[in-house]
């Protein structure tokens, strides 16, 4: 029984572990070797999905720390990614408060709003308070592919979410 409980705990910890791992490790979702413009931000998808569906799996404090870690590893000013991630979390919490039943299409549309505000925050801070130059075109490609890949991850995370629920109901 104890073994079963600890397995459930590990399964619950999955999305958070993935978020931290993607932030801290060398592993990236930038596939320039295969297709020069292909890159997407899987962290934003993780934060949006789990803040919307199961906020208890992904605490706001963890989202903040994952952002700080990402800033250090990538070389951005501290707090930049944290703010982007928290904006996504804010939109998803708002959507959660305002809606009862959601489908993949509504999630996809609201995710677009979330990454729009997240990137807007990122751009405003970068352009006005940092000397780092970024390519708007690369950023647009990244946003576009993040949006395109959202349904794919939505299905995967939805399946994982049902696994967590099964574990809790037993």
């Amino acid at each position, binding site marked *: 029984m104890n073994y079963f409980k600890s397995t459930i705990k590990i399964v619950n910890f999955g999305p958070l572990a993935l978020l931290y791992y993607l932030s801290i*490790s060398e592993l990236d979702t930038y596939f320039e070797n295969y297709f020069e413009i292909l890159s997407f931000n899987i962290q934003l998808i993780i934060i949006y999905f789990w803040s919307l569906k199961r906020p208890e799996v992904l605490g706001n404090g963890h989202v903040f720390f994952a952002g700080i870690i990402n800033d250090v590893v990538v070389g951005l000013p501290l707090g930049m990614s944290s703010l982007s991630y928290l904006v996504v979390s804010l939109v998803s*919490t708002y959507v959660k408060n305002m809606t009862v039943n959601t489908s993949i299409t509504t999630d996809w549309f609201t995710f677009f709003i979330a990454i729009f505000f997240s990137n807007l925050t990122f751009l405003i801070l970068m352009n006005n308070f940092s000397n780092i130059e970024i390519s708007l075109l690369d950023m647009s490609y*990244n946003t576009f592919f993040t949006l395109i890949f959202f349904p794919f991850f939505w299905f995967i995370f939805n399946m994982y979410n049902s696994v967590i629920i099964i574990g809790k109901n037993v």
Partner: protein
Amino acid sequence: MSSSRDDFGIAFRSALLQRGAAQKFSLFSLITIAIIIFFLDSFDFKFMKPIRSLINDGIYRASLVASSPSRYIPEITGNVSELFSLKKENEKLKKELEIYKQKELNVKYLTNQNRNLKKILESEDTILEENIVISKVLIDKNSPYLNSIIINRGSKAGILKGMPVMDKDYLVGRIVETNFLSSRVLLLNDLNSRVPVTFGKEGVQAILKGNGSTRPILEYLPDEYIIEEDIEVFTSGKDGIFYAGAPIGTTTIEGEVKLFSEPGQLSFVKIDLSNF
């Protein structure tokens, strides 16, 4: 109309301030903290430098450990396939070993001969001491926005901001951030990289600008200058940071530079401390 505005206000306030069993911190407090940290870091407050340095060193080490599976898995799978060709390789290596043994004997003979000749010339044994630090690449995380690497040498090893970084004899970038035990290298292909260069028989001056892709571009060329292909590009040293004559790459017909050292394939780099 006013009721929908009220709903928006309530939902937004609730999203910002709500704390429950699941959330220990409200989004409002975390966003405020993130903004404060961002401004403290962006405006380079003195007390932030050691804090940032400490955080960087800690996270870089943790990142190195976390990245090790992604580094070793390809190696392990490669080793399994190598097992099948082990016998053949063993025989080949034995033959190579014999050759190297012969060469070692030759080297010993030549070293002795060299010493004896120096004694005859009554010359002093001088060793050219180059002021170079060799460093290992700790983290090489690709980002759509920034192209940089983290190396395992920092201010403790005498590394300063702006120092040129080489792979073999080829320039790959410069130091943009130093911590006590690690540093960040801005690669030549990063959007923020600018290096004064010279090339061709006429010694054409230009600025090599990173464009985020693997091939940086040449800017500020003379008017109506037509770039030829395969001309070697060197640093001009005009900025006083990079010394003149370090090879970088060769020109392409599109006005780009094909780098001698591929930015994504760096394992060890050299940092030249001599100009600082």
